[in-house]
């Protein structure tokens, strides 16, 4: 007895139908998930990449409430969010920067501007401290 062409296609068609059903189940499961998501990172720690450091005088005193500027040296330049990054009471700062090459600059009243280059690597937090010395009279 000859098998009909329709019968020969039943297995692959059923397979395709099964895939469609399974995929829909996955999509429904996604839609059933809560529409809000939780932040899972401890807010007290820093995220995975950027630059941290301290700004101090030559004798180690912290320089607080001073802006640390970042400039991308990559070509094309990286996007830098226009936050104002300020040193804290202990002179420390944290710059959340994407991996790349940067020039960080610090200027404080009575001190010449100091700039230094740094490379931020994926998954790493670079350390960059600044020591500001008063301008020579």
């Amino acid at each position, binding site marked *: 007895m000859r098998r009909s062409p329709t019968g020969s296609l039943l297995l*692959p068609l059923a397979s395709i139908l099964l895939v469609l059903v399974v995929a829909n189940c996955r999509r429904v499961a996604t839609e059933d998930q809560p529409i809000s998501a939780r932040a899972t990172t401890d807010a007290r720690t820093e995220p995975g990449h950027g630059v941290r450091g301290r700004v101090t005088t030559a004798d180690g005193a912290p320089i607080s409430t001073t802006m640390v500027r970042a400039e991308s040296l990559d070509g094309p330049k*990286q996007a830098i969010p226009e*936050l104002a990054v300020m*040193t804290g009471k202990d002179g420390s700062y944290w710059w959340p920067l994407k991996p790349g090459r940067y020039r960080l600059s610090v200027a404080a009243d009575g001190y010449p501007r100091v700039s230094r280059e740094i490379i931020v690597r994926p998954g790493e937090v670079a350390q960059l401290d600044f020591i500001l010395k008063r301008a020579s009279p």
Partner: protein
Amino acid sequence: MKTSVSIVGIIGLLLIGSSPAWTATVDPHTPVSSDGRAFLPVHDALRQAPGVTGFNGLAVEGWADDSQASLPASMDTPEEYALLLQRQPKTAPVGIESIIGTDIRSRFYTIDYPNRAVGLLTFNQGTGSFICTGWLISPNTVATAGHCVHTGGPDGSFSTNVVFYPGRDGATSPFGSCAATTLFTVLGWTNSSDEQYDYGVIKLNCNIGNTVGWFGWWWQSSTLKKQHAKITGYPGDKPIGQQWGNFGEIAAAEKRQIFYRRDTFGGMSGSPVYQPDREGSGCQVTCAMGIHAYGIHGSGNHASNNHGTRITKEVHNNFLAWIAAP
């Protein structure tokens, strides 16, 4: 024949199973909150509206009123403000990303609407201290950039110790200050730190907007190019707490971002990009079209313009949902 048809079926299985159409995709505008809450849908009539008109506040023009603040109006003592200014940078290096050509920013007085509805934001991220700008969109809701409320990306975290000083003017907080209770942004920012989704809001522990007023906003899918626009915020290259800004045109508009050659600076993240005198559907008078976020970088429009997140219909819907959130 039977074997070859079965093989075709299996190949079809593999192709369909790997098709992007069947992988789980998540809307990048999906709201995310610092306390993990879900959101109730906003009434459809509001969602369909092209915008929301603002409110100019109950405070008499020219009169500082801190009655709705959680912390009262204050003025730093000369010693306190001197300490604050002690380490301020004198000048910013011209030509780094944000100042385009001649710096044409002007200092604004903050006692009147809408400038008093724009405020200084201070906060921490990790061990760092930051300043941004925010603007009220309801009595207790402040719009700002996403990176001011969350560091961005899957290993990121929400900001902490967030305080909003509406109408901050140098050493003076004429309308007091309010602390944040909850922060909101979207998955496009928290999952991918995608600048096209760099927006968020801060819920306050006070209804200071009843006093100082709040901004309206509108969205449209057609181009915003050549629309006049004002940007107002708190740049870090000026003494902390001074409100500065300027006025010009939108240079270019893409689907989710707007571009402008108005001068901006670190600290102005979150500033409203708005029209102070709009007459149109959805919003009249003080109406925002975007949220400033970045200086010059990358290529194309990004390489020659400062830019921010455009208020689209999705942003509009999220603003409404966040305003309605307790």
